[in-house]
């Protein structure tokens, strides 16, 4: 505890290395205001804390002789227009639609279908399938790569079923890679649309 307090103060004044002045830090001018404010925010106060025994000495007020117009009107009612333009911090839930797919072709996950499978592919925070296609450079050139992420459950069953599906659809040999720690499957080739079709068919 005590170590924490002194560390916080020392961080503020590490340049001059003067801990004695640092304990009176609020009045020390060479410690920037930003850092000074941080000291007070970070200190865990108890009654034994020496910093809180006295009030911080206020700095001398800056003389401002410039003639700036300071007349203004305050409006609280119009703040609602400000709220309209502020961003939402988190992604909202999807509203209920009358019929699916929605005009843009979006499906919600189908709980009945996907509960029959031993695996599950979660939706992303934006309510989309976590299927990403990319161009990746291998040692012999560029290759298309499809990655399926956020897989829960038995990842190996999904991998074999996906490979069979793609083989049947394309007639090509499909090369896949399973990463258990990242919970994802990588598929060589331009098969993002087919993979999405398979997952939507499974109700994911």
């Amino acid at each position, binding site marked *: 505890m005590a170590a924490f307090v002194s560390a916080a103060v020392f961080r503020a004044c590490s*340049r001059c290395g003067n801990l004695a002045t640092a304990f009176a830090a609020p009045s020390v001018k060479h410690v920037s205001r930003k850092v000074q404010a941080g000291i007070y925010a970070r200190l*865990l106060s108890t009654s034994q804390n020496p910093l809180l025994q006295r009030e911080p000495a206020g700095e001398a007020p800056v003389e401002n002789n410039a003639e700036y117009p300071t007349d203004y009107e305050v409006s609280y009612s119009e703040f609602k227009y400000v709220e309209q333009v502020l961003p939402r911090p988190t992604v909202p839930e999807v509203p209920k639609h009358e019929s699916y797919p929605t005009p843009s072709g979006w499906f919600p996950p189908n709980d009945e279908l996907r509960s029959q499978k031993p695996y599950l592919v979660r939706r992303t*925070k934006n309510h989309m399938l976590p299927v990403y296609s990319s161009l990746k450079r291998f040692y012999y050139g560029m290759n298309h790569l499809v990655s399926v992420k956020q897989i829960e459950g038995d990842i190996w069953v999904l991998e074999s079923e996906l490979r069979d599906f793609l083989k049947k659809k394309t007639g090509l040999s499909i090369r896949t890679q399973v990463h258990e720690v990242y919970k994802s499957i990588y598929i060589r080739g331009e098969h993002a649309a087919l993979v999405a079709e398979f997952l939507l068919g499974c109700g994911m």
Partner: protein
Amino acid sequence: MALAKLIGSILKSVSHQHQSKIFLTTTVRLQQNAEFSDTQGPSEPAEDLETAFPALETPRMTSRTLRFPVDHTYPRLSWVESMDTYEGTKLGMIDLHPDVFAIYPRIDVLHKNVHWQKMYRHIDYNFEPSRAEMPGGGRKPWPQKGTGRARHGSCRSPLWIQGAKAHGPRGPKSYFYMLSRYDRALGLRAALSCKYAQNDLVIVDSFDIPTSEPEYLQELTDVRFWGYSVLFVDDTDVMPENIAVSVSQIRGFNILPAYGLNVFSMLKHETLVLTLAALERIEGKLLDEVHTTHRQEKFVNTLRPEDFRKHPKQDTTMLKSFSAPIGNN
């Protein structure tokens, strides 16, 4: 000690029993657990439980609504304890969000976080002068030809003993870098998941302890098997006086506000003790981070050299030009 054993057996059984998503009252849940624990080992029957725990008659927590619910797994459960006595009372059982307390234990992300926390503040002060900065060495030691010795131009050449170092360290060198915002949040979630999985996470209602003497807290942690080092986390900046005083006197114990929680401290301490308010804050913040609409941007440091300058910067050129007497020649 029999009490502690019983709690331990119940805790064990709780970790196996998770299928019920419906919020039961604690009594029902305790009875179920007691029945379940009968199969594992001898313990008291369920009816005697209420008499064994007189404190259970106090009002207790049974449920907690989780934001962003998930369906691929179940919410984790944890006791809420109190710290007013050595053994404490079980005030209830609450749900923890599986996206924060039961994600895949990404040891590699923990390593990344700890490495980042060590390196971003590290400055290498090692410094070796170059051959130009070393004293002497301007003279040619002996003539180029005719002496029969190897040709040399300076006695500070890297080939010479007491010469300079060719590519030496040129400190101070900063090792600052920023881990991505996603990895930082993921590291916190992984650390909390590891703590929960290894039964090192304790949730208490508040840090109110009856005395400020460190012996009380020491005895409390011994009775509850919290280990040698404990990290207490609360939501406020101003901690209760008793715990702040006793924690400051015990080596290995530390207390942090919720915004100071970090991976390094969590892994350094054996047990993590959260208050309910801190739990709400940490879980809420991490869930917000998972579902944020914020676009990740490149990190820009807003602190400038002026913020760390010792004295206000002086305009030396102006001083020089006007301090000398003018028009003497």
